């Protein structure tokens, strides 16, 4: 059975490594983009089953990236999990229209939460 693909968009290199380790252990095929511009090309190439997305990115913000994805019919349906330091300021209802399935708070989440959120988004 082919592994499901997850694109991780996170500009902190070491936090990204952490996510990639967790997701690989859980059996996912992982890809990393450190910023939104690279992420758009990567998503277009890889066609991931899910996206794990940081909110405060260098250059284009996560919201601009989500807008961009929504403008393409074939990318708009990819489920997104946000992992952010601003979780207390983001209501899931406000971003659900962009394909966001879960909002994780980086300050309080546990490693299992990341895998569970991706698994839940793919369900």
């Amino acid at each position, binding site marked *: 059975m082919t592994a499901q693909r997850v694109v991780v968009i996170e500009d*902190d290199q070491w936090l990204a490594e952490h996510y990639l380790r967790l997701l690989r252990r859980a059996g996912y095929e992982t890809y990393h983009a450190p910023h939104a511009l690279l992420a758009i090309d990567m998503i277009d190439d890889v066609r991931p089953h899910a996206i794990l997305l940081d909110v405060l990115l260098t250059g284009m913000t996560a919201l601009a990236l989500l807008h961009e994805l929504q403008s393409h019919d074939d990318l708009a349906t990819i489920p997104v999990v946000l992992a952010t*330091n601003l979780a207390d300021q983001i209501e899931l209802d406000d971003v659900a229209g962009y394909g966001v399935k879960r909002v994780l708070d980086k300050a309080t989440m546990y490693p299992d939460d990341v895998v569970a959120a991706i698994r839940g988004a793919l369900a």
Partner: protein
Amino acid sequence: MEQAGIRRQKGGAFLGGVTPLSVAAHELKSPLVLLRQLSLDLEMTSDEHDRARIIEQMVQVSEKALRLTGDITRSEAVQRSLFECTPLNPLSVCDDVTSELARLYQAHGRALRIGRIRQLPPVVANRDLLRRILLNFADNALHYGDVDGVVELQAQLLRERGRVRIAVRDYGPGLPLGSWRNLKNSLGQAQPVHARPQSSGLGLYISAQFADAMNARIGAIRHRDGASFYVELPVSHQMSLL
């Protein structure tokens, strides 16, 4: 090539009701969050290679957070008292900075080296404050430069201004013009926490304060292939009086 001279704004540098305390708290949150995640990861990682890497990352993240708290404390002191400035060799400070950050850069798979340094006279500066400014710039370059790129410390004499410019030059795709303009407008100010990713700009604000305390100034140059953040210091004329 676009250049931005930066002066710290007098008073009122914190915008939109964002207090220095909240900016400092935000700035410290990122390394603490990362440290917690790495600790949890370490707990569940059995591979020895991965464990060694995670431990090294934890050490470096802790040191970064401690540097920041040291800068914040020192920044408070700068506002209250004068710092002694003495003639010093800028190259020796560059050596200190490359040594201090060697492990951090290595852990990122990057290199910090001393690049173009022309024949330089001594500058008038406070060694500790100058060191902290360059550490801030070099730390910043890790996040904004190319993932595989080298970062260089460069220095040159600006004869007509009677100053020496020490720059931290990163190589990478270069900031988009919009991001550069935001950065140029915001340098020397602590920004509202949403204005920039990861960093609130506090490091640059503190660097501008440190530069002010030495009668120096910080600035930035946008290149086609990266950016330079620099500090310009007055040349020491003490030796020429002898």
